[in-house]
């Protein structure tokens, strides 16, 4: 596939990840970026609805939770209710194949075979060979969930009706040999058209006015239904960064984010970001990667995070 893996996040790789790091070039890039940013004035946040450009890392952070975690079938059925929470997908029997999550431009697959992906394995921790790739979102519609041997049986009627293989998607993972396996999100890949799409710079150039998020953090609620994005935000005017914005936050519902997509970046602009997350009681850590391009969204609510009620 040729997707690049982010230089500083987790990856399913060996020592070549360390040895092959272009460290000097990376330091130069960081330095140039800092110099450029330091030249920009800092402006107070202007609250309201704006066109927003999210870079690949921000997209990855958002999709990891609102698609990755939300589609874990045990979470949907309430097995994580006493810990991390549940999901905005409340009725899997009614939602699978029907629930429109957002724009029809969304095509997101799960996989445990992506080179460099954190969750790439030959067998999952139940001994299942995961499929090379399985559709989770197709044309904006929820078409599958992340399953185990037990979990896929709960929705076998859906699989039968849709002539899908009645098999686990191979999502079981235990943090350690001493731990009991849990369903953990596979690596996600946002599919795109290799012929079209734009790079981050090109997406920015196409914006007359808006906000750009650079490697933002995101915090979702315990049903993955709403979230707050915080971090470094830039004001965009006529396709250029003109200022850094202080104390900006982006507050949204998952449905708004997925529906308000205007344009996804190109396949070439896709980067894989790995992250470490916890689940279960007792808690277990697991790693998964999300390969996502940057994207532009319309009418996203920007707030002042420092302002109290």
């Amino acid at each position, binding site marked *: 596939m040729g997707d690049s893996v982010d230089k500083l996040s987790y990856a399913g790789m060996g020592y070549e990840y360390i040895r092959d790091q272009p460290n000097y070039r990376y330091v130069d890039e960081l330095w140039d970026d800092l110099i450029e940013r330091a030249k920009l004035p800092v402006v107070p946040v202007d609250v309201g609805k704006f066109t927003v450009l999210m870079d690949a890392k921000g997209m990855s952070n958002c999709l990891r939770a609102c698609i990755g975690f939300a589609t874990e079938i045990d979470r949907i059925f309430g097995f994580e*209710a006493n810990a991390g929470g549940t999901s905005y997908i409340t009725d899997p029997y009614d939602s699978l194949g029907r629930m429109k999550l957002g724009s029809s431009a969304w095509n997101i697959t799960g996989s445990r075979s992506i080179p460099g992906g954190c969750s790439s394995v030959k067998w999952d921790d139940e001994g299942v060979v995961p499929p090379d790739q399985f559709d989770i979102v197709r044309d904006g519609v929820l078409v599958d969930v992340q399953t185990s041997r037990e979990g896929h049986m709960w929705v076998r009627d859906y699989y039968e009706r849709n002539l899908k293989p009645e098999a686990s998607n191979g999502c079981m993972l235990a943090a350690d040999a001493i731990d009991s396996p849990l369903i953990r999100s596979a690596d996600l890949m946002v599919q795109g058209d290799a012929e079209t799409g734009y790079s981050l710079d090109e997406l920015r150039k196409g914006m007359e006015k808006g906000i750009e998020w650079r490697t933002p953090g995101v915090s979702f609620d*315990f049903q993955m239904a709403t979230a707050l994005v915080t971090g470094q935000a830039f004001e965009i005017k006529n396709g250029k960064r003109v200022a850094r914005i202080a104390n900006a936050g982006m507050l949204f519902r998952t449905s708004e984010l997925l529906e308000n997509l205007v344009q996804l970046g190109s396949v070439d602009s896709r980067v894989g970001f790995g992250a470490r997350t916890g689940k279960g009681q007792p808690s277990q850590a697991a790693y998964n990667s999300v390969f996502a391009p940057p994207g532009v969204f319309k009418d996203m609510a920007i707030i002042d*995070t420092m302002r*109290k*009620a």
Partner: protein
Amino acid sequence: MKTSRSDLWNADQASNLMQDGTAPRVFDEAVELDIFERVKKICDESYSFVLGVRSWWGVGQRWARNRAAMTSDQRDVEIGIRLSKKGSILGRLLLNQTDDVSLRNAIDFLLKGEGKYLHIEDMPVAGYTYPPGKGIDVWSDKTFNRAMHENGEAVIRLTENAESEGMLSAGFISTWGARQAWFVRNAGGRESKGVNLATEAQCSITVRHPQGVGSGWAGQSSFEVERVDMNKIAEVALDKCIRSLNPVRIEPGRYQTILEPQATAAFASLLLRELGPRKKIEFVRGGPLFLGYDAALNRIRNKIGLKIVDERISLSHDPEHPIYGTHPSLGVDRVEMIRNGILTDLFSDHDNSVQEHYKIGEALFRSSLVLEGGNTSMEEMIATMQRGLLVTRFSSLQRLDEQSVLYTGLTRDGLWLVEDGKISKAVKNFRWTESPFFVFNNVAEIGSSIPVFSPNSHGRTPFSHPPTADVVKSIVVPPMKINDFSFTSTIDAI
């Protein structure tokens, strides 16, 4: 190669087997001493070493949708070795094998580092000014001896009422125990040793409506399993679920708010985090308790001696507190950080340069806090509230600003509107934006302090050098009525 587990079944250590013939849950002193003796033989006398031998056991029972979901029995050992020569550390290594070959390989690996690594300045091995292994033994035989089937049987009992009400119960019970022994052998042959013991029991339950239109939660943790009233937890969680059904949306804004103890604990923990370690203030030179550098006195000034929260609030670490029952503290004194609203002390780490505070160690910082200040009952707080909110607990905390310690987060598992002294309706969850310094300076009423649900994550505790105790976190806090608590937006999650 023998593993640590096979050693437990070693015929020479048959006395370690439990009466029913199963492997012991943790090592006993004889096993630990045996490992120490073998490391002494392997390690040349010109080297000093610190050896940590940690063995732990935990039984977990998880359930969801009123049915058992996972039962686990986990046990493991961690052997840590830190090798030194003439006051310089050569290296540290962690392993979970106790046979001679593995120990010898570990020492050889560390010895290869001699002359190759930068010598790290650290405490002289010959004289610890910070006593390693100091901590609090919080041990209960009842917790340690709890049988796995007791947890399984509890699931049936704890879910039956939720099932009969048509609700879905999900929960977790865990009992856990650990021994951490440490041994020091100096180059001169001087030896010292110690051991810390810890047990912990926890139970937490979430009851939800099958359509997800209501949710209630309750939980408790303690070193003593008999102090975790599981039946009461199940009852409270179900009651909160039923009372939280079909919540209505109300306008965000500033409300007078009653924080149940679990919610107060969230802010108390944030406050505790700002009280140490002292290095953060003196070296980073920032944060809410930093006052600036005094060039004339050549010292960093901080807010010790100044009022930082409401004058009714006192915050301490108190090993003699009744929650520890009759277990005595072991060389750890009561430490008061806030008395009547005034900052009296800060945590330090085991830094020689702040020796006068050396007793306030890392173990303490991670272990417990007691926040006290009043005795108003929850019923009285509700009865005297004209219009406000009652919060069960918080979730998804996210820091927004270092200097003011401003956080955002969510309410969860029970939020009610109180009007004219009565709970009137369930309300949809809010996102809030607050700081512990704002909250604890806007106090209307304070209740009596009780221990809350505050389990530590065990089994993966990084081994520290020198070894410190496994800590059983205890947070004892009151319910509080806070003025003008800021709720900034509604969220959809129930």
